[in-house]
């Protein structure tokens, strides 16, 4: 049995994921279970960008990430009629499914020798600004790819997917303390990559922490 076929809800045993409020996806999922076309379109619009971002950052390959997203939606269609609110958040379950699919791919690609470099599309000449952005993206992606898989998973879930610490720990099947340890190590490694790629650093403001404290206060959800 591969990872993706294991019960994603098992992660809840480690970090409690009992939602304190109604699952925001529950009503839509109930309509998807009835195969309502509008609900299907709405769920795809809501979840596909997140799934694609997650898989792309975990695998570093857009095409493979698209395969993961498609497979994850097949799981959604299959499980939607049996979904029961209150056990785990749908978004948490979906992240676990997608990550299991990613790990299946990572294991398979590790086992298969790479005969040739994958085809890449020649982007043609790019304006300077786009070249710089392209280089920054490539540097960040390379730094993420260089992380050990569990550290990458932690930073992708917490920073990019913006899961709470409880949700991220639940998805990973670990305690919050273990999550914080992985995050700290990931950020330390990323900082080393950042130091090695000074050209890709964003322009450093004169007061970099100014937006984060009073007069220099850190941003909170109330700020948005």
């Amino acid at each position, binding site marked *: 049995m591969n990872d993706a076929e294991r019960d994603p809800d098992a992660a809840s045993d480690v970090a409690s994921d009992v939602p304190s409020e109604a699952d925001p996806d529950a009503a839509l999922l109930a309509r998807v279970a009835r195969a309502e076309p509008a609900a299907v379109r709405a769920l795809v619009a809501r979840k596909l960008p997140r799934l694609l971002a997650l898989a*792309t950052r975990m695998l570093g390959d857009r095409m493979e990430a698209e395969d993961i997203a498609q497979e994850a939606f097949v799981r959604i*269609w299959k499980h939607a009629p049996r979904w029961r609110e209150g056990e785990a958040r749908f978004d948490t379950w979906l992240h676990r499914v997608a990550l299991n699919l990613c790990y299946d791919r990572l294991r398979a690609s590790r086992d298969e020798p790479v005969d040739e470099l994958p085809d890449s599309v020649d982007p043609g000449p790019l304006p300077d600004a786009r070249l710089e952005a392209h280089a920054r993206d490539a540097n*960040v992606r390379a730094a993420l790819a260089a992380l050990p898989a569990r550290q990458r998973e932690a930073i992708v879930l917490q920073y990019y997917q913006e899961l709470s610490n409880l949700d991220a720990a639940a998805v990973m099947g670990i305690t919050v303390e273990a999550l914080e340890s992985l995050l700290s190590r990931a950020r330390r490694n990323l900082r080393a990559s950042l130091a090695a790629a000074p050209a890709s650093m964003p322009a450093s403001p004169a007061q*970099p922490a100014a937006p984060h404290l009073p007069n220099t206060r850190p941003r909170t*959800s109330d700020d948005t």
Partner: protein
Amino acid sequence: MTPDRFRAIVDAYGADARHWPAGERAAALAWADAHQDEAHALLRASAQLDAWLATDAPPQPDAALTRRIIASAPAWAPAPRGLVSRGVAARSPRARVWWSGAALIGAGLAGVLAGAFVVSFALLAGGPPHGTTPATASDAPSLATSFDGTTADWSGE
């Protein structure tokens, strides 16, 4: 909130307080307010890393991928009206199948009965006129079948 815990939070979650643990956010912000120099030094390094990570734009799904995924969803099959109530059809897909099967069987039986009636009517209409009805089926060759008894006993041959 201790200095060590504030440092641990920033080390793990970065400089953006929206990413900090919800249960500790207020206390951490209060500590940062009260110890601005210390907090500033810790946040400065993390903010730089956050800004660098933020330069990685998330990939956007294209229309073809979206279409493929929508097409992979189960087809919507509204309950047939007039044959079965929406409630029954919505509750149980098996009930829909049962009702569909019953309808097919009913239609089949109706067809068989109608066919038998038409054949019988045609045969009777093509028979001899009233008053000359033969006494036995063997006297009316048009009504005889291979399962009918025959009066010919071939005894003369």
